[in-house]
């Protein structure tokens, strides 16, 4: 298990994860910088990700899609806010339509990645800020464990009845 700490701050809608890896900083960075490696972990096995654009540079854009078990493609984009190889990366990510055009209706998530040497290995922290519950729910729809999503939908249906 690489994740060593998870903190959630419901008030600030922020999630902070810390993970320790038995690998040098440069190799951990490669997991973000190499699209073929990135797509192997970004999407869950049931919704594998494919990056069709990958530009890890300030203001650089990424475009990917996740393929549902039924073969539907769900597109997402990133915009790189700042990048400082191999230690820091800050990006926005959001949803896109089937042509890859960003969906302005859905809010954007901002994530800050920090990669530092720690002992003989590497520590990576990810701080994600979710501006609204819509953004969160939309993310959940895209390939999370389905249990709670369904439960939450059931609650919605229940209360609107």
């Amino acid at each position, binding site marked *: 298990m690489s994740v060593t700490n998870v903190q959630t701050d419901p*008030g600030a809608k922020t999630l902070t994860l810390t993970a320790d890896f038995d690998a040098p900083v440069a190799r951990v960075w490669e997991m973000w910088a190499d699209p073929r490696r990135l797509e192997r972990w970004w999407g869950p096995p049931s919704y594998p990700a494919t990056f069709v654009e990958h530009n890890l540079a300030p203001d650089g854009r990424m475009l990917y899609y996740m393929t549902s078990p039924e073969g539907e493609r769900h597109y997402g984009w990133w915009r790189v806010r700042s990048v400082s190889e191999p230690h820091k990366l800050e990006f926005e990510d959001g949803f896109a339509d089937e042509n890859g055009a960003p969906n302005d209706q859905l809010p954007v998530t901002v994530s800050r990645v920090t990669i530092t040497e720690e002992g003989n290995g590497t520590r990576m922290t990810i701080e994600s800020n979710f501006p609204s519950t819509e953004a969160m729910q939309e993310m959940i729809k895209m390939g999370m464990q389905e249990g*709670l999503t369904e439960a*939450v939908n059931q609650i919605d249906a229940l209360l609107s009845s």
Partner: protein
Amino acid sequence: MVVDSEERANRLFHALSDATRRDIVRQAARSNHSVSALARMYPMSFAAVQKHVVVLEQAGLIVKERHGREQRVRTDISALRNAHVLLDELAAMWRERLDRFGDVLAESSKGAKS
């Protein structure tokens, strides 16, 4: 708290699988009722309604509050959804991502050494 997100889902599903319990959540979302007031709404014993209330409470769907001599039941679904359930799910998603991250990393490290 993230580790219990699976368990929380199980409890939610179980809690919502019963028509009386779904109705109690609906009632509690509209206004605060005492457990005895709730018990009068259903054709069952106070003890039976009390049991349903406990299941809903354990699922985090309702909260019991003491008002003088009576216990009132209230539900705050939006707070539940916004603050806890969604963040826990997102945390679970990132944990899974980072577990895969670790696996791919270990694989590529091995590859580099050979």
